[in-house]
């Protein structure tokens, strides 16, 4: 086997593909933001009051957790570019850890609402009127869809960890690592808008 073949790679194209996918994600959440703005306009008072029941402390903590995790995954790309495999793995580990803490917080928050009989389809919530039903319907759906993206992002980053250990992702072939970072940042980006729209309209 003396025949050497060069494997063709087009990093710009794979990154472009990732961005195109991210645009569909932006439009998906964009559609939900359209729904949110119309319902909020029509039920301003109910949205205003319902938002008081969300914990600003939890929301702020989760925002900061996601921001830190975004910076750690961004730094892990710098680490892999500088051939520092250990640091890259450590930073990705921190990112996964922070993502899990975010989910745990979300679990506590949702658990608290459900314990108070506030969940989509709840008869107690229905008694409180249309505005509250819409607010919590959107709250559970949008934060739930966002949490699903967190889970997918964590799996994606988990793969990158394995690829770095195995040597598939290296200092001169890290486009997959960059793409996982892009996905994670998008999840962060969506939360940046979800947070003020649900928690800070009091």
């Amino acid at each position, binding site marked *: 086997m003396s025949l050497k073949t060069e494997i063709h790679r087009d*990093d*710009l194209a794979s*990154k*472009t593909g990732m*961005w195109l996918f991210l*645009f569909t994600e*932006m*439009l998906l959440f*964009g559609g939900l*933001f*359209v729904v949110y*703005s*119309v319902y909020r*306009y*029509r039920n301003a008072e109910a949205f205003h009051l319902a938002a008081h029941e969300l914990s*600003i402390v939890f929301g*702020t903590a989760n*925002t*900061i957790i996601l*921001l*830190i995790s*975004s*910076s750690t995954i*961004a*730094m892990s*790309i*710098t680490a892999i*570019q*500088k051939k520092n495999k250990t640091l890259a793995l450590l930073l990705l580990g921190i990112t996964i850890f922070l993502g899990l803490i975010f989910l745990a917080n979300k679990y506590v928050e949702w658990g608290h609402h459900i314990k108070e009989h506030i969940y989509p389809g709840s008869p107690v919530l229905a008694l409180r009127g249309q505005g509250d039903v819409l607010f919590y319907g959107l709250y559970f759906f949008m934060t739930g869809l966002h949490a699903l993206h967190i889970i997918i992002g964590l799996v994606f980053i988990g793969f990158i960890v394995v690829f770095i250990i195995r040597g598939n992702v290296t200092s001169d072939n890290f486009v997959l690592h*960059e793409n996982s*970072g*892009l996905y994670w*940042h*998008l999840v*962060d*980006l969506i939360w*940046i*808008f979800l*947070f*003020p*729209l649900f928690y*800070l*309209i*009091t």
Partner: protein
Amino acid sequence: MDISLSLVLFDYLKLTEIMENEKNHIVPYHTFLLVLAGLIALTLISVAVTKIYLGTLTVFIALFIAAVKSTFVLRVFMHLKFENRMFTVMVIAVMLLIGVVIFITLLDYLFR
């Protein structure tokens, strides 16, 4: 003819230069930490502002801060600042599209 050819060549050279830079561009760690500090500060400001009663202005301030934060995330964390211009143009186009859809929908609801 000559001019257009040289323009094409110039564009090509510029593109390869960009691609070359992109491959070698390493963002230093402290840039990310600095941006992170800014983002956390903006989050806290955004929370603090809601404690002050400003009426409808509150929403616009919250959204403005969110927009500033997302610009930082897009440009630094997502490397748009160091990337081919094409990506920035596409991101702006998608954001504008979402903005226009929200605007038109609200026009309908506000003035029906």
